[in-house]
C-alpha cells in the first residue's frame, strides 16, 4: 500500500536554528498538508498546498514557517528560527483529491528544540 514517507523521524535542534522537515507524498496525490501535534494531544492544521502554492494556512503558520515542493516528489516544511514551543510531532499528509476523500498521513517527525 502506498505510504507517505517523512524524514528524519527525530530531529533535535537548538533554539534559533533553522530546520527543514521532509516528506515524500504518495506519487499520484495532488494535495499536501502539514499538521503538528504537541505531546500526543490535539492535531493542529498548519498549511495545505496545491498546484505549487499554499491554498490555506492556519494562524500557527506565521512568517517563521514556509513550505516548498522543490521537485516532483518532495514536500518540505521549513522553520526559520526555531523556538522552544515549536517542539512537537509534525505530520505530513497527502490526498488524491480534496478533503472529502480523506488523507494519508506519514509517521511524523519528532522535533525537539533545546
Amino acid at each position, binding site marked *: 500500500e502506498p505510504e507517505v514517507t517523512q524524514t528524519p523521524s527525530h530531529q533535535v535542534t537548538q533554539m534559533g536554528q533553522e530546520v527543514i522537515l521532509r516528506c515524500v507524498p504518495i506519487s499520484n496525490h495532488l494535495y499536501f498538508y502539514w499538521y503538528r501535534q504537541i505531546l500526543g494531544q490535539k492535531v*493542529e*492544521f498548519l498549511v495545505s498546498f496545491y498546484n505549487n502554492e499554499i491554498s490555506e494556512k492556519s494562524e500557527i503558520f506565521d512568517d517563521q514557517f514556509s513550505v516548498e515542493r522543490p521537485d516532483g516528489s518532495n514536500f518540505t516544511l521549513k522553520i526559520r528560527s526555531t523556538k522552544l514551543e515549536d517542539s512537537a510531532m509534525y505530520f505530513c499528509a497527502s490526498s488524491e483529491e*480534496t*478533503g472529502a476523500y480523506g488523507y494519508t*498521513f506519514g509517521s511524523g517527525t519528532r522535533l525537539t528544540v533545546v
Partner: protein
Amino acid sequence: AQSVAQPEDQVNVAEGNPLTVKCTYSVSGNPYLFWYVQYPNRGLQFLLKYITGDNLVKGSYGFEAEFNKSQTSFHLKKPSALVSDSALYFCAVPYSGNTPLVFGKGTRLSVIA
C-alpha cells in the same frame, strides 16, 4: 467554520465488551465526517468516513460509526473490544467546504484484558 467535539478525554472498556467513542459535529450543509486512529509513536491512520448514504458506516478493524443528523453525532463503535484497539482516536471534519481537515482533541481508548 466547521468543527467537531470529542467530550471524553479517556474511555476505558474491558476486552470483549462493546465500545463507543463519542463525537459531535457543527457543520453547515451536509457533513463529511471522518475517524482516524493513532497508535503509539505512529501517524494517524484512516478508519472510516461518512460522505452520504447509509447512516451506519463500516470501516477498518471492525469499527463502525453511526451518523445521527438529529443529534449531530458521529459516534465510533465496535461490538467487541480488543486490547490492541487501545490507541488515540480522532474525529475530523473539513474546516470549510472540502479542506482542510480539522481534528477533535482526541479520545484515548484503553481496553483492559
